[in-house]
C-alpha cells in the first residue's frame, strides 16, 4: 500500500477559484429549487420545461426526456420533440409495499407512454414517458401512497442504497433503518417540492421543515452525490460507484457501526483525461451514534471544497484527489467532532442477487426474480408487469428492488410459497433456463428515452448476452460467467466501470471495451479497445474467452485472468493508471 500513500498526499487548493459554472447561478437564483416551474406547468404550448427549470426539475426527481427514436421524424413534422419526463422515486433501500406497488402499477399503465415500470441501478423504480399535464397527478398519486421523488437527481444527495439482504433480516432491518435516516438527514429542507407538486400540502409522513438548508446550503452541492449502506459480504450496491458508503459492521449479529468509504464514482467524459472512474477510500470505523454526523460532515466538506468552476471535476472523488485523502478525512473528523478508528475487517465476495428461493433466519421465504434490464412490461409471451401486480394483490410481505435491477418478493410464509410461485411462473417472472451469464449482465436505460445516451444499452444487452452465452458454450465454459455491463454513455448508470467486461457507448453502434474489473467490484477496468462495433465486440470476446478457457488457473475469474496474463494492466490508482 506504500505507493498509494504517496498518491494520497496531493496538496492542491482547498477551493478552486474561477468563474463558476452556469449551474451554480441557476441553483443560487432558484429560490431554493423553485425556479419558475409553476409557470412552466401552465405553458401548454410546449410539453417541455424552459431554461433553468429544465435542470431544476431534476432536484425534484425528474429528467426531461423525449422519444429519441422519433426526434428526427418529428422535426420534419414541424412538431417539437415528444417531450416527457422520467421520474425516479426516492425509495431508500428499495423497499416497497404491495399497496404502493399496485398504485405505481396503475399509474404507469394509465399515464405513461411506455406503460412500464423500470427498476434501476439506484435501487428504485422509474416511470418513463410522463407528459406534462400528468406530472402533478403523478406526484400527488405517489404522495397518497407515501412515496416522493425529492432529490433523486441533481446536485444533491440522491436515493440512498442499502444491501438487499432479506436472509439475515434482523441486520438488514437495522441497516435499512439507517439508510432511511441518512436519506432524511441529507434531504433538501426546502418546501419547494410540496408547494409545486402537492399544492403546498404537508408531505405524507414527512417532517415539518423550514426554509434553510443547514447541510446542503443555498447553492446545494457542486455535483450529484451518492450514498450507500452495505452489509458484507454482499456488495450488490457497488460501493465504489458511490461518494459515501457505510459498511455495516456487526457484532454477534447486532449492528455496532460502520466503516466509512468516501470518494467512489464511475462517471467520466470521453476524451477528457482529467476525468476517470475511481474507487472510494476507506476512512475508518465510526460507531453507530456518529453515523449522521459523519454523513453530514462528508457532505458539507464536499459542499465547501468541491469544484464549482468545472462540473466535470466537481465530484467528491476529484476533491479528494485534489486536496488529498488525509486532508479531506481530517476535515470530516473536525466537522463531525470524531476520530475515525481503524477500519474493521470485512470482505466482499460478490455482487449478484441470489435469484430464486432463499429462507431467512426467521423462517420466512424470499423469492428473488431476475428481471432482465429491470424492465417490467407486459411482453407478448411474458406479462411480467401484470404478474407483479397479481403477486402484489396476494402478497403479505413486501418487495425489495435491488441495485442489480431485480426484485425480491420478501417475507413469504411457507404456506404461501406455492401460490406465489404459481403466479410468478404463469407470468414469465420465473424461468429455469436463465443462464448465470444473463444474471451477471446489466445495462442502463439509454435509447430511446435517455438524452445522454450515445449508443444503445438496454435494447442491445439481451441479444449480446445470447451471443456471449454461445461463445462460452463454444469454449466449454457454459457454466461460467463474466460480469458484463453495457452503458450508453460514460456517465456510469450501468456501472460498466466495475465490470469484468465493460462496454461504454461512444456513438451509434460504437463502444469502448474495458477489461479487468473483478467479481467483488473492487477494481476499475481499463480501456482495452476503442470504438468497437457489435461484430468487433463479439470477435474480441470470442478470442479472449478462448484464451481464458484454455490458459486460466483453477477457478480464475475472467477479470483476474486478463490482468495476470498481461492482456490489460491493472488500475490501482485511477488518477495515475486509468488513462496511462
Amino acid at each position: 500500500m506504500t505507493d498509494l500513500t504517496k498518491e494520497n498526499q496531493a496538496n492542491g487548493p482547498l477551493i478552486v477559484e474561477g468563474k463558476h459554472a452556469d449551474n451554480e447561478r441557476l441553483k443560487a437564483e432558484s429560490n431554493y429549487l423553485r425556479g419558475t416551474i409553476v409557470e412552466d406547468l401552465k405553458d401548454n404550448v410546449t410539453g417541455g420545461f424552459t431554461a433553468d427549470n429544465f435542470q431544476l426539475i431534476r432536484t425534484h426527481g425528474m429528467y426531461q426526456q423525449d422519444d429519441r427514436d422519433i426526434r428526427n421524424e418529428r422535426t420534419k413534422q414541424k412538431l417539437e420533440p415528444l417531450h416527457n419526463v422520467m421520474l425516479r422515486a426516492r425509495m431508500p433501500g428499495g423497499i416497497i409495499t404491495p399497496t404502493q406497488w399496485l398504485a405505481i402499477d396503475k399509474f404507469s399503465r394509465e399515464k405513461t407512454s411506455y406503460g412500464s415500470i423500470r427498476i434501476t441501478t439506484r435501487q428504485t423504480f422509474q416511470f418513463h414517458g410522463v407528459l406534462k399535464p400528468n406530472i402533478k397527478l403523478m406526484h400527488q398519486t405517489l404522495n397518497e401512497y407515501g412515496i416522493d421523488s425529492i432529490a433523486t437527481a441533481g446536485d444533491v444527495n440522491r436515493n440512498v442504497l442499502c444491501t438487499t439482504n432479506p436472509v439475515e433480516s434482523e441486520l438488514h432491518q437495522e441497516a435499512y433503518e439507517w439508510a432511511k435516516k441518512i436519506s432524511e438527514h441529507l434531504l433538501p429542507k426546502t418546501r419547494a417540492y410540496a408547494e409545486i407538486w402537492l399544492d403546498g400540502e404537508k408531505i405524507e409522513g414527512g417532517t415539518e421543515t423550514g426554509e434553510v438548508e443547514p447541510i446542503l446550503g443555498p447553492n446545494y452541492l457542486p455535483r450529484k452525490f451518492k450514498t450507500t449502506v452495505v452489509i458484507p459480504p454482499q456488495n450488490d450496491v457497488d460501493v465504489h460507484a458511490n461518494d459515501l458508503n457505510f459498511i455495516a459492521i456487526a457484532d454477534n449479529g447486532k449492528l455496532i457501526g460502520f466503516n466509512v468509504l468516501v470518494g467512489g464514482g464511475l462517471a467520466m467524459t470521453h476524451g477528457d483525461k482529467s476525468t476517470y472512474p475511481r474507487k472510494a477510500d476507506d476512512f475508518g470505523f465510526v460507531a453507530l451514534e456518529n453515523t449522521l454526523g459523519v454523513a453530514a460532515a462528508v457532505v458539507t466538506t464536499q459542499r465547501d471544497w468541491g469544484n464549482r468552476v468545472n462540473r466535470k471535476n466537481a465530484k467528491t472523488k476529484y476533491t479528494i484527489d485534489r486536496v488529498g485523502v488525509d486532508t479531506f478525512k481530517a476535515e470530516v473528523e473536525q466537522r463531525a467532532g470524531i476520530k475515525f478508528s481503524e477500519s474493521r475487517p470485512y470482505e466482499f465476495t460478490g455482487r449478484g442477487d441470489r435469484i430464486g428461493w432463499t429462507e431467512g433466519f426467521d423462517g420466512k421465504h424470499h423469492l428473488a426474480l431476475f428481471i432482465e434490464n429491470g424492465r417490467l412490461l407486459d411482453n407478448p409471451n411474458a406479462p411480467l408487469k401484470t404478474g407483479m401486480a397479481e403477486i402484489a394483490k396476494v402478497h403479505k410481505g413486501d418487495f425489495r428492488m435491488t441495485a442489480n435491477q431485480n426484485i425480491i418478493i420478501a417475507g413469504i410464509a411457507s404456506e404461501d410459497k406455492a401460490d406465489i410461485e404459481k403466479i410468478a411462473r404463469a407470468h414469465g417472472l420465473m424461468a429455469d433456463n436463465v443462464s448465470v451469464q444473463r444474471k451477471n449482465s446489466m445495462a442502463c436505460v439509454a435509447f430511446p428515452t435517455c438524452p445522454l445516451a450515445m449508443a444503445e444499452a438496454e435494447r442491445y444487452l439481451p441479444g449480446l448476452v445470447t451471443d456471449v452465452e454461445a461463445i462460452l458454450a463454444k469454449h466449454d465454459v457454459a457454466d461460467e460467467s463474466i460480469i458484463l455491463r453495457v452503458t450508453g454513455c460514460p456517465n456510469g448508470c450501468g456501472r460498466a466501470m466495475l465490470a469484468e467486461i465493460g462496454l461504454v457507448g461512444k456513438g451509434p453502434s460504437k463502444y469502448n471495451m474495458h477489461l479487468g474489473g473483478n467479481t467483488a467490484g473492487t477494481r476499475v477496468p481499463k480501456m482495452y479497445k476503442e470504438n468497437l462495433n457489435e461484430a468487433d465486440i463479439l470477435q474480441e470476446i470470442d478470442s479472449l474467452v478462448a484464451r481464458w478457457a484454455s490458459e486460466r488457473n483453477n477457478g480464475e475469474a475472467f477479470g483476474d485472468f486478463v490482468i495476470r496474463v498481461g492482456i490489460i494492466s491493472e488500475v490501482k490508482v485511477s488518477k495515475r493508471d486509468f488513462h496511462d
Partner: protein
Amino acid sequence: MLPEKQNLNQTMLDTNQLASFKQGINDLSPLQLAWASGYLAAKAESVTSVELPATTSSVAAATLTILYGSQTGNAKGAAKSLAAKASAEGLNVELKSMGELKPKAIKNLTHLLIVASTNGEGEAPDDAIALHEFLSSKKAPKLDHLHYSVLALGDTSYEFFCQTGKDFDQYLENLGAKRMAARVDCDVDYDAEAGAWSVNVIAQAKKLLDVDSPSSNVMPLATVSSVEEKYTKQAPYTAELLLSQKITGRDSAKDVRHVEIDLGDSGITYQAGDALGVWFENSSNLVNELITALGLNSQEMVSVVGESIELATALQAKYEITQTSINFVEFWAKLVGSEKLLALLDDKTALREYAANHQVVDVVKSEPLPNEVKLSAQTFIEVLRKITPRLYSIASAQSEVEEEVHLTVGLVQYQAGDEVRQGGASGFLANGSQEGSEVKVFIEHNDNFRLPADNETPVIMIGPGTGVAPFRAFMQEREATDASGDNWLFFGDQTFTQDFLYQVEWQNYLKSGLLNKIDLAFSRDQAEKIYVQDRLKENASEVFSWLERGAHIYVCGDMSRMAKDVESALLEIISEQGQLSQEQATTYLKDLRNAKRYQKDVY
C-alpha cells in the same frame, strides 16, 4: 364625414324642389326626357361649382347588373366569366359582390343576373347575408320593374341543395320581379350548365335591353379585365409538387400533409387569404378496381365532350369517382334492381349519407351488376359527375415563400371492407403523386378573407385543424410587412402531442413576439371535450376588449359545427361583455361582418 358627401348634401334638391321638378318632367315622353337630360347636362357643365351625384349614371337604363354571393370563389368566378361574355356581346355590365350593394339600392336596378352559392345547411354566403335578409324582410320594396334570372351553385350531397339561389329566385318573384330565364341549379361540376344558362340569359338580356350587336365603343369593364388571370380554372398552370410532408405525429388518428408546390416562372401571384385550386387525377389502382368490378374493358373508347378516349383515361382524369352523387346511387339502384338501394331512394337523408360514405367503386362492388344486365362504358361515364378541382386555403404568403405555394391538406382516408379509400385530391397530393410530379393549379382569389389594410389593427384568428392554414399565411405576411398589430391565434385539434399543426412555427412566433397570444384546445387530452369555442368563452373579456379596439376576427375550418359554435360563442361574449341583448349582439356581429372585420373561410 367625407367631402363628397357634404357636397352632395349641399347640392341635392330639397323636398319642395324635388316635388316641383318631378311635376315638371312627369308627362314627358321618352324622347322629350332624353332631350331634357342633355339640356340639364349642358346646364350643369356651365355651372362649374355643381357636381352631379355619381349615382345618376347607374340609373341609366341600359345596365345589366350581375351580383354574386360567393363563399369560396366559385360563384364569383362564374359571375366574372358571365360578365366578360355579356360585355363582349355589347351589354353594359356592372359586376358586383352582393356585399358591395346597399340592399336598398336593389330598387334602382332594372336587369339583374344573380350567381349565388349555398353554404352547408342552406345558409347564404357571407357577402350575400345582408341582401338575402333584406329581400325576405318587410322592408323589401316592390320590384315590378326588375327583370332577373338566378344561377344557383350547390352540391347535391347536401340536404339544402342550392338553397340560397332558390331563395333569391323566390324572393324576387314574390316582390313582383319578372324572370327573364328560369333558374338553373348546378351541382359541383357546374361549368356546362352555367355556360348554357349564360348563353340563354345574355340572349334574353340583349332582347330586353335592345342591344343588337357588339358596339365598338363599349369598353371592357375594368373590374372584369383587371382580375383576368393568365392561369385559370379552365386553363390551370402545371406546377411541380415539391413536398408532401405528414405533419401529424405517428400516433395521430389523422394524416395531415404540409404540401409545397413550385409555381416556377408562371408569374402567378396570390395574397394571404386566397385559395389554390387543385386539379387531380384519380388513382390508377382505384380506376382498375372499378373497371374490373364493372366487367368493362379499360381500353374501350368513350366519348367525352366530343373527344374519344379510353375508358381508363376518362375515369382517371375526367370523372369524379371518389365522391358519389345521389344521382349515381339512384341510377345504380334502378340498374341493378338492388332492393337495399331502392329503399334508400325514398329517404333523402339516408341516401345522402350513403352517397357520402361510399365511393363509386364501393357502391358497384356492394351491389354488383347482375350478369343479365348490360352496361356500356359510355352509359356509365355519363351518369358520373365531371371531375372538379378542389380548393385549398393557401398556407403561405408570397412575401415569405416567393414562387412557392403551401397547403395544409387533411388526407381523407377510411377503410371500406378490405380496401383503404382516400379522397381524390387529398390522396393525389398526399401519396397518389410522387414529389416532383406535376399538379395543375390556379389561384382562387378570396377578397372575403383579407388581413386588415392597416398593419396596426389587431387580429384574432380562429382556425382549428387544417383551418389553421390561412393563419400561417397571415403570420408570414404580418412578419414580412413588419405589421405592428397584435395577433392572437385559437387552435384546436384532437391531441397536443400528435396534432399540434405547425407547433414549432407557432412557438417561434411566440418567442419572437409576433404572435402575442395562443390558446389551444385539444379535445381528447382530457375526459371532457374542449374546443376552440370554449377557449374563446374562457377569454371572453379579453376577446371583447380586442374587438372594441378594432380587432378583425377570422374563422377558418369546418363550417357545419365549428364555425357555428364559434359564432354562437362570439354572440354570447358580445352580449355578456357588452351588456347587450341578443338582438343587439347579433347587430354588433353583423356590423363587424359588414365592416369586413368578421370574415370566414369555412367549408
